[in-house]
């Protein structure tokens, strides 16, 4: 069976995100009506919904499609083509399958999608009379070309989103007086081979517009290409593969670019093949095969390298991919009697030999990128089975797009197993019985017993697994006869090493005697130790260099104009790298005066903040420029900007001694531009550690009283504060206050002071007291006066469980019993006529002042990064591709400077650019693009405030490329009509897809996709598209403990990744976790808490998770805060943090082991919009509801220090302080780096 039940029938117990009672009934007045959760007096009917999940289990195995007639030999298929995954405006999960029969009929398979790859039924598409189709090809945009027996071609016109089968055929003649033999359609390219083996390119074809224009569908003429080929195949990105007509070798067309679709030259692909030795067509497959292969065998690498090739071709919708991970270890019922020599093909015992034309399905063999020097041979079975073994999800993608194939070898004819064997072993595949599966609709088991074997009720899908040992690698001459590249996405700028044999040679060179001798002699050039030479001074010890360049700078205010300047980056480094120092100077263009100059050690972050055609860098120096936005530099070009970016990043990293992969406790952030940054507390840790405590010397230089400083870890028991200073002669009294964040209420600031230590000289007494809620408590005045005017002092305040222990000049002075929990303390304040020499703050935990955190760019382009304390880090790209951190650093942004030697992989990402077309209705002409004078631009961005036109939309940098044309977006939120319009009463309003009587304006969204090519320390993880992921270490005991990974797939399903650990960060397979609601966000936290947020805005927590059942049992609904819809959730140590769609943060309170779902949501007030200032204390009053507050964009809860970080809607990084088990909501925020729209996501290690 192609489909399998996943769980039993159960009731849906939610309605629109609200929980229903346990019977699941919903009530209404009468049947066709709106149902409600509550029973009312007028409720006359009720209904409830039963659900049962099924999954497509025929992934990674061949599932026979029922023949057209009872007798499969009556009208066999002779060709099939799959495409249409990117019809303009269409749903990418819908695919088009066209086939042709031996009678020359053209059949279209309806209902084929990634979730139902077998489709529903065949529909005959009539061809003009006298046309008999010989071969067919369909491109990714749905454009269909077919070759006729008479050598001419047919083109299907009018293939659009609404009419996927097209409207009518156009006939196209062959070049010159030749006859076409083979044609292949890409996106904007059609290639053909004529019967004399010459290759032709059809110019003027534009796949994306072909549905609307006959001219662009049929192209304008044939151009002959050099070379003679037998078969040619065009991939979705217009890359071309071919098989030579004489040598039958695989060729790849190099230099095919969007600007030059014809490419440059043919190059032979070095394509070793793995052949199967297994010849028995009854060999067994093992369901456990994949488990046996989990451990990083060479196959796995191969599979990965392959899956990265297939990246682009795998459609965005992962639904079906997920459904099926378990049973996929069966491979295809591939021709096990695979032979290279047709003469060896057997006939089945009953003599009724069935021959079927197979769709091409094997992909080419990419020799291992690691280049072990071994040439490998493999065939399709191997690839598929190893895919299934290690990467379930990508496997299924392979199957779906299989007949689009990859570079392929076809078995034009293959043979079927013997009937006798079939009977004995029900798992052996046989087409006779497979047609009885649910797959084919033309023939039914119930009605057509003659075709179906009754014994084989569940044997629709069979696979066969080669034993690993049963493979051998052969380098023999394979004469290819078919290539199919539809699923192969090769980046022409970054080709796999298919052509290079050089590295093989160098492997050989390594052991050559001359090389060995040279290396030995080189190593022997200087005498060994003891010669004294090692004490010699190094000639090049201090390396210093100055880099200068021109730029435009914006020094302070973000409203300021950019002005011309000269940059000078001077860097002096020692060989050890410890004494590095550097300066960045911003000079006037003539270098005559200095606008700004600072040490590189002041820099906390160098980040790209480009806008299209404005390459910019922001340099954050929070300590220098308190409260102002970072220094921004604008360069004349991308290259210049990247050069500076690379140099600044590299120099800063050396400056801070940041090398290598970040420690597992690092904090990751991503910017709105997709850049990934990391803060590694291990570096601070090393510098702060003194004894068992972490010490931070607060900055007092040049500061006068009143002095206030932030105590970043608060003042829990165990904390020590040391203050050294000098009392002035004129001093009357001074005070040291350990205080809470100020609360502004009714226009006056109130600050609770937990400890007020106040020597008063006239009274000769030292008063201790607390100020709580504006009221001073009872003064404690015991003890002698130990301070003297005009002399130095040293005060140590130790916080203990019950008391503060206060030492003066090393002697115990007094105790002060806690009147309030010391956890609330966030600041120290010093007032009075004293000068401060030193203030040292010591804490049991590493002190991380947000303004001191150095953020280092890691490379890659990601939307989200999630990490866990086991050191496993995952990322999600803008195209929802999942990536796993490799442990490297660097990538293309560093331009070869200080990049790690391994783990850097090419990456691509896709983002959509949108432009809105706005129109207003007027009584005479209807909707036109003439708006009112006050109206928004007729072409604008989503807000309508900025003019945007399609023509003037520019890409962000030279690394982006357009991969599509502008097209109408039919998936705009809110719904659209047939032409993509959305209507509203007026701008700006809520838009709806149906035109109403009162609608005076309408808009539609145009979309164009751009693709980025970059590289970074990330490894692609299959083709399952994710929208969210969360990692959590299952247990801390073992060294290589398992990590729980929960994810939300692009279709809103929850997934659990099996087998993830520090040694195997990518894990092995996905497990689908059924949920009634489509999910948007997921988070797993300590103690096996897993929470999710549905697209409807309500929250869920997972019940029943135990060590033995990490997946849990059921989702329990948690209602969102009244009237709010949650969009993101993060599980912390003490509480669950939620973020609603308005940017408001909520904390789930009273979460206990008994009630893991908690009791209520507590609102966290938004922060004042003037909170640009670093280190300023924010309001924690729960009553603040002023308009000038800003919400949040993202929140993340960490486990190590129970910390909470958030990014405000304006892109400023904040840390919540004052978090304790008793008060998990904390008391206030402190700020780190940030500028408008810069940061988008943060993640703390879980």
């Amino acid at each position, binding site marked *: 069976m192609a489909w399998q039940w996943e769980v039993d029938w159960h009731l849906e117990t939610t309605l629109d995100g609200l929980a229903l009672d346990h019977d699941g009934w919903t009530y209404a007045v009468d049947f066709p009506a709106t149902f409600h959760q509550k029973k009312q007096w007028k409720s006359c009917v009720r209904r409830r919904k039963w659900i049962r999940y099924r999954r497509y289990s025929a992934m990674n195995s061949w599932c026979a499609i029922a023949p057209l007639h009872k007798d499969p030999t009556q009208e066999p298929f002779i060709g099939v083509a799959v495409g249409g995954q990117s019809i303009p405006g269409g749903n990418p999960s819908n695919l088009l399958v066209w086939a042709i029969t031996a009678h020359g009929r053209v059949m279209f398979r309806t209902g084929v999608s990634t979730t139902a790859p077998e489709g529903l039924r065949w529909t005959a598409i009539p061809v003009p009379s006298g046309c008999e189709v010989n071969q067919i090809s369909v491109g990714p945009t749905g454009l269909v070309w077919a070759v006729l027996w008479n050598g001419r071609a047919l083109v299907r016109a009018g293939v659009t989103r609404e009419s996927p089968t097209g409207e009518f055929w156009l006939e196209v003649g062959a070049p010159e007086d030749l006859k076409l033999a083979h044609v292949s359609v890409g996106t904007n390219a059609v290639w053909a081979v004529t019967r004399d083996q010459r290759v032709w390119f059809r110019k003027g074809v534009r796949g994306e517009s072909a549905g609307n224009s006959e001219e662009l569908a049929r192209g304008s003429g044939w151009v002959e290409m050099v070379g003679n080929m037998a078969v040619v195949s065009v991939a979705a990105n217009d890359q071309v593969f071919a098989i030579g007509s004489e040598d039958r070798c695989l060729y790849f067309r190099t230099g095919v670019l969007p600007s030059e679709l014809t490419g440059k030259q043919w190059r032979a692909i070095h394509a070793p093949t793995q052949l199967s030795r297994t010849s028995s067509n009854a060999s067994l497959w093992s369901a456990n095969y994949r488990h046996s292969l989990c451990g990083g065998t060479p196959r796995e690498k191969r599979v990965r390298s392959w899956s990265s090739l297939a990246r682009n071709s795998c459609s965005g919708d992962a639904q079906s991919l997920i459904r099926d991970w378990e049973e996929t270890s069966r491979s295809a019922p591939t021709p096990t009697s695979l032979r290279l020599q047709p003469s060896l093909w057997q006939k089945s015992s009953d003599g009724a030999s069935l021959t079927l034309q197979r769709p091409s399905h094997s992909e080419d063999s990419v020799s291992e990128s690691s280049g072990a020097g071994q040439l490998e041979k493999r065939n399709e079975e191997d690839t598929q089975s190893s895919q299934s073994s290690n990467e379930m999800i990508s496997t299924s993608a392979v199957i779906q797009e299989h007949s689009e194939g990859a570079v392929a070898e076809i078995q034009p004819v293959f043979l079927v197993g013997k009937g006798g064997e079939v009977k004995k072993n029900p798992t052996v595949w046989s087409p006779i019985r497979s047609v009885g599966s649910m797959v084919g609709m033309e023939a039914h088991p119930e009605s057509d017993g003659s075709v179906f074997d009754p014994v084989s009720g569940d044997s629709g899908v069979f696979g066969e697994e080669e034993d690993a040992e049963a493979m051998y690698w052969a380098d023999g001459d394979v004469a290819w006869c078919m290539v199919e590249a539809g699923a192969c996405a090769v980046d022409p700028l970054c080709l796999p090493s298919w052509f290079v044999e050089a590295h093989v040679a160098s492997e050989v060179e390594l052991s050559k005697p001359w090389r060995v001798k040279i290396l030995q002699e080189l190593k022997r050039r200087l005498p060994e130790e003891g010669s004294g030479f090692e004490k010699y001074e190094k*000639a090049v010890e201090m390396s210093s260099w100055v880099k200068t360049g021109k730029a435009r700078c914006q020094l302070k205010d973000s409203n300021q104009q950019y002005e011309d300047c000269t940059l000078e980056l001077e860097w002096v480094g020692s060989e050890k790298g410890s004494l590095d120092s550097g300066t960045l100077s911003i000079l006037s263009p003539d270098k005559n005066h200095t606008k700004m100059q600072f040490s590189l050690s002041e820099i906390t972050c160098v980040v790209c903040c480009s806008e299209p055609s404005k390459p910019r860098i922001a340099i954050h120096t929070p300590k220098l420029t308190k409260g102002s936005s970072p220094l921004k530099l604008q360069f004349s070009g991308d290259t210049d900007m990247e050069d500076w970016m690379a140099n600044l990043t590299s120099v800063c990293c050396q400056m801070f001694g940041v090398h290598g992969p970040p420690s597992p406790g690092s904090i990751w952030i991503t910017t709105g531009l997709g850049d990934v940054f990391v803060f590694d507390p291990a570096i601070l840790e090393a510098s702060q550690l003194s004894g068992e405590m972490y010490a931070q010397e607060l900055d007092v230089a040049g500061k006068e009283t009143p002095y206030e400083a932030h105590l970043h870890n608060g003042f829990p028991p165990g904390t020590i504060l040391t203050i050294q200073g000098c009392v002035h002669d004129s001093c009357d009294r001074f005070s040291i206050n350990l205080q809470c964040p100020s609360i502004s209420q009714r226009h006056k600031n109130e600050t609770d002071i937990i400890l007020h230590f106040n020597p008063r000289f006239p009274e000769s007494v030292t008063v201790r007291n607390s100020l709580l809620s504006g009221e001073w408590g009872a003064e404690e005045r015991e003890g002698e006066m130990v301070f003297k005017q005009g002399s130095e002092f040293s005060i140590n305040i130790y916080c203990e469980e019950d008391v503060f222990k206060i030492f003066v000049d090393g002697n115990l002075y007094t105790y002060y019993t806690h009147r309030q929990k010391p956890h609330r303390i966030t600041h120290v304040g010093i007032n009075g006529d004293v000068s401060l020499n030193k203030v040292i703050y010591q804490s049991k935990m590493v002190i991380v002042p947000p303004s001191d955190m150095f953020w280092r760019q890691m490379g890659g382009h990601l939307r989200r990064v999630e990490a866990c304390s086991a050191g496993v880090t995952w990322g999600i790209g803008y195209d929802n591709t999942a990536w796993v951190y490799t442990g490297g650093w660097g990538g293309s942004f560093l331009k070869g400077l200080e990049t790690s030697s391994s783990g850097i992989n090419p990456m691509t990402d896709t983002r959509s650019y949108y432009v809105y077309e706005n129109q207003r209705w007027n009584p005479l002409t209807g909707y036109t693009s003439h708006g009112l004078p006050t109206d928004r631009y007729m072409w604008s961005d989503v807000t309508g405030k900025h003019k945007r036109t399609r023509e003037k939309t520019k890409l962000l940098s030279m690394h982006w490329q357009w991969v599509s044309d502008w097209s109408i977006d039919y998936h705009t939120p809110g719904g659209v009509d047939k032409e993509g319009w959305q209507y509203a009463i007026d701008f700006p309003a809520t838009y709806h897809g149906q035109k109403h009587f009162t609608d005076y304006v309408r808009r539609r969204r145009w979309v164009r996709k751009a693709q980025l090519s970059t590289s970074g320390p990330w490894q692609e993880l299959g083709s399952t598209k994710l929208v969210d992921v969360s990692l959590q270490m299952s247990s801390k005991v073992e060294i290589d403990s398992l990590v729980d990974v929960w994810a939300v797939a692009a279709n809103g399903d929850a997934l659990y990744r099996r087998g993830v650990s520090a040694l195997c960060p990518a894990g092995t397979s996905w497990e689908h976790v059924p949920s009634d609601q489509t999910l948007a966000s997921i988070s797993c936290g300590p103690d096996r808490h897993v929470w999710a947020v549905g697209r409807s805005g309500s929250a869920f927590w997972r019940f029943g998770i135990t060590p033995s059942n990490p997946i849990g049992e059921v989702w329990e609904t948690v209602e969102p805060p009244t009237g709010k819809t949650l969009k993101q959730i993060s599980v912390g140590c003490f509480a669950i943090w939620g973020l609603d769609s308005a940017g408001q943060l909520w904390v789930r309170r009273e979460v206990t082991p008994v009630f893991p779902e908690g009791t209520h949501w507590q609102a966290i007030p938004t922060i004042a919009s003037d909170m640009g200032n670093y280190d300023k204390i924010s309001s924690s009053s729960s009553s603040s509801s002023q308009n000038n507050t800003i919400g949040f964009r993202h929140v993340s809860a960490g486990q190590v220090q129970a910390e909470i970080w958030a990014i405000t809607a304006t892109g400023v990084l904040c840390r919540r302080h004052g978090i304790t088990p008793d008060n998990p909501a904390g008391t206030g925020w402190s700020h780190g780096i940030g500028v408008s729209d810069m940061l988008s996501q943060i993640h703390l290690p879980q």
Partner: protein
Amino acid sequence: MANDREVLREIWEGRLPVCFQLNSEEVYSLQAPDAYYLMVPRLSYFPLVTDKVRKQFVRYIHPDKQEAEMWLDFNGQALKWHYPIGVLFDMYAADSQLPWNITVHFDKFPEEELLHCPCREAVESHFMSCVKEADVLKHRSQVVSSMQKKDHNQLWLGLQNDKFDQFWAVNRKLMEASGEEVFKYIPFRCYRGDGPFIQHLVRPVTEEGQRKTLQHLIQEVFPNETNLQIMTHGIEPPWETPLQWMSEHLSYPDNFLHLCIQTS
């Protein structure tokens, strides 16, 4: 492709211990200065590494000479600053004991023997012109002319600051045999005795397409001689070493193979 990183690294790490001594005739102060010991990279040029030496000795010489150009000799042989240090050592001092004793002069600049080196930029322009000449031989100048100014700069800074990665990030491109498998000609210079260096056009493969080795090169350059000893980077590369590989891996930063020839 120069991808044998182990060899490249070893070549780059080549160092020579040098003992600089001020020429005793030039000592002006009462006390002769101590010798100055320095570990210098074989691949570098003397003007790039002797700033400290000059600083050390300039206090001891006649005030009138303090602005004069410093020059070096070994056993009376003036050392050409525009040859890589390793080449000078292999030419003149290969047999002598380490450290290499070099005499420092500020007076009597040997105008006939040495070029003046007014500044580091002079070294840079000499270096870059060598790189360009080598590229003409290897790729008909296609690679170096497609490079940007900053690449040239990085090449130079990498050498000057002894930064292997910085240098090779750019030099890699120069060492690629683009299109074809091998270079057009192998850039090399042979040094023999006091005369000028010898340079020929030598292809890395024979007309039959077979890889040439060091032996082929020697036979082409010195057709009638036997018993030659080839020294580069302080070693004697085996004669069967392929020329293409040698050029990729054993070239000095200026992209030339510098071979010191001695008759044994």
